[in-house]
């Protein structure tokens, strides 16, 4: 019961804190501008006061009327999905938990890798690896899709549209640059 109460109060307390911290930070640039008397802080301060007001009203309602903030229409798509896929459920196995974590972490590693090693090296590794994590087990399919998609990307973005793509840093930058020159 107590945990449930904390769970319902915590987000709105968080929002209030967010609003207050924002207001404190916005003090740095308060004061009129030469061409706008209200100053640069006026607009964000109105918004942050709005956040404090809405979360304050919600906390008041929760305290005095036990108003349920998460009430929504029964039978909606989100409802069905939220009920059916509560992945934090205790019965979820370690394997599934690892898989779920990998689904979040791999893209972040991909972006970091792209930043350091370059798009042309990281993408052919990321593509089959992410498919594998998602459950694709056929080696032939992994290779076929990875090669096909990479070829399509090269044709569309490098050969056709000259789209800038991350080239990595240091040695990898020149390596990616040479690769790029090959196709352009």
């Amino acid at each position, binding site marked *: 019961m107590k945990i449930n109460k904390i769970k319902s109060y915590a987000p709105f307390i968080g929002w209030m804190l967010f609003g207050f911290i924002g207001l404190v930070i916005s003090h740095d640039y308060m004061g009129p501008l030469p061409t706008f008397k209200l100053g640069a802080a006026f607009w964000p301060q109105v918004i942050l006061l709005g956040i404090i007001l809405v979360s304050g009203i919600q906390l008041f309602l929760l305290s005095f009327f036990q108003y349920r903030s998460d009430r929504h229409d029964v039978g909606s798509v989100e409802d069905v999905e939220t009920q059916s896929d509560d*992945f934090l459920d205790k019965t979820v196995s370690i394997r599934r938990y690892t898989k779920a974590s990998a689904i979040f972490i791999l893209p972040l590693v991909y972006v970091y890798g792209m*930043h350091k090693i370059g798009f042309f090296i990281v993408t052919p590794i990321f593509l089959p690896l992410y498919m594998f994590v*998602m459950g694709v087990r056929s080696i032939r399919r992994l290779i076929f899709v990875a090669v096909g998609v990479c070829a399509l990307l090269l044709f569309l973005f490098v050969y056709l549209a000259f789209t*800038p793509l991350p080239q990595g840093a240091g040695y990898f930058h020149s390596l990616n640059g040479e690769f790029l020159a090959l196709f352009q």
Partner: protein
Amino acid sequence: MSDFLAGTVLLFTDPLGIAVFVGGLVGGLLFGAIPGLSLLTLAAVLLPFTVWLSPEHAIMLYGVIYVSGVYGGAITAILFNIPGSVENAPTAFDGYPMTRNGQAGKAIGYAVTCSAIGGTISAILMMMATAPIADFALSTFGPIEVFAVIFFGLTVVAGVGTGSLAKGWLSLLFGLFLGTVGQDPVGATPRFTFGSLYLSGGISFVPLILGFFAVAEVFVQGQRVASGTHTASKVAVAYPTLSEFWALKIAVARSAIIGWFSGLLPGVGATLAAFISYNEAVRWSKTPEKFGKGEPEGVVAAETANNAATGAAMIPLLALGLPGGALTAIMIGVFNMHEMEIGPLIMIEAHDLVWVLFAAIFWASLAILILGVVETKGIVHLLRIPFPIIAPCILIFATIGTYALRASIVDVYVMFAAGIIGFVMRKTDYSIPAVVMGVILGQIGENVFSQAMVMADYNVIGLFDTWVSGAFITGGLLSIVFLVRRRVLEFRRT
């Protein structure tokens, strides 16, 4: 009428003209549909080559690209929750839930038909009264009126995509707050930048939209794959019936009018058109709680309006030389490359060119209908590709789309951060559409608010000075009262 026929004859009797028309149509559709390859990319890539074309063909090409590109962005928004461009974001609010509900064919059908209707109405109005309409719009709608329209739009956003009024408002306010990060629009004072050079430029729309929609969607579905509860979207090619369209006639007419007038306003154009039109669809609906969960009227409103804005955007461009957005600004470049000056005299000095452009926009809008009907039957089969294969492709396309914007890896990090925030917000019943609308309308809103306050001499009552602004602001205030009253009544009942 005779001018239109003459323009059509000029367009379709020349083989090169036909080739340019078809090329622009297909190119715009493809580039609009693929994230990272926006219609602006195509427009920019083609710009140097237009020197080799006649002025008529060059300008007509850009008109056609504009029309088909705006529609093209709706396809990926509906099928994969990846809006091809910012003006297609509201299409995803209900288009993607329709796909999840097994109504992908219907969603695309609505988008195709309404894009064609919006574009055609817009083209007809454009041909009928370019100069007087431009005069009316530009003399009636100043910063005060545009701010009033945006305020009116924002008041309804909180009710979209969530059952909780508080969470809806917090989502909207969070979006508005994100829009304030960077330099303020008047004095360029850095706000919430923490000394970061990147943040001082503000958070761009594109990484946020791709993060909140595409990346968050991959995370949500990926988490279902991990827990074994993922279900693939049903492939359905069923097209909406005539009676289904007829039931939405009011929404189509309303959205066409909103789109048309928004398109006339320099600097806002199709993006504001789509968002305001979506908001009005929610406001006028008897079942607003269905929006954000697969309501066809949401797709109809967004797609009619953003296409209606395309023809309208040509009016200030041609009559006054004012571009409504990035693509119309590139069109000024095309005119300059051909040593032509746009302005009121262009209707006389380049009569043929203007009417070829008008005819091309009209026929391109109709061609979308034919192309779209054929395409719908095939394109929904993309949903047959298993999610584990499509997921990394979505992430890669979203990454390219974000990076290509300004060649900044920080944009990509922002996109993934938005994806994670979007995932958490979706799991806790906050409204992603409200956040996105907050960011977009907030950035435009602050800019016009500061101008409006200066014009009103910092007196809030001054915002009610004209009948247009007074009506919109009063309407917005009434809308807030109505929303709160409805929730209070619901609360009392429960």
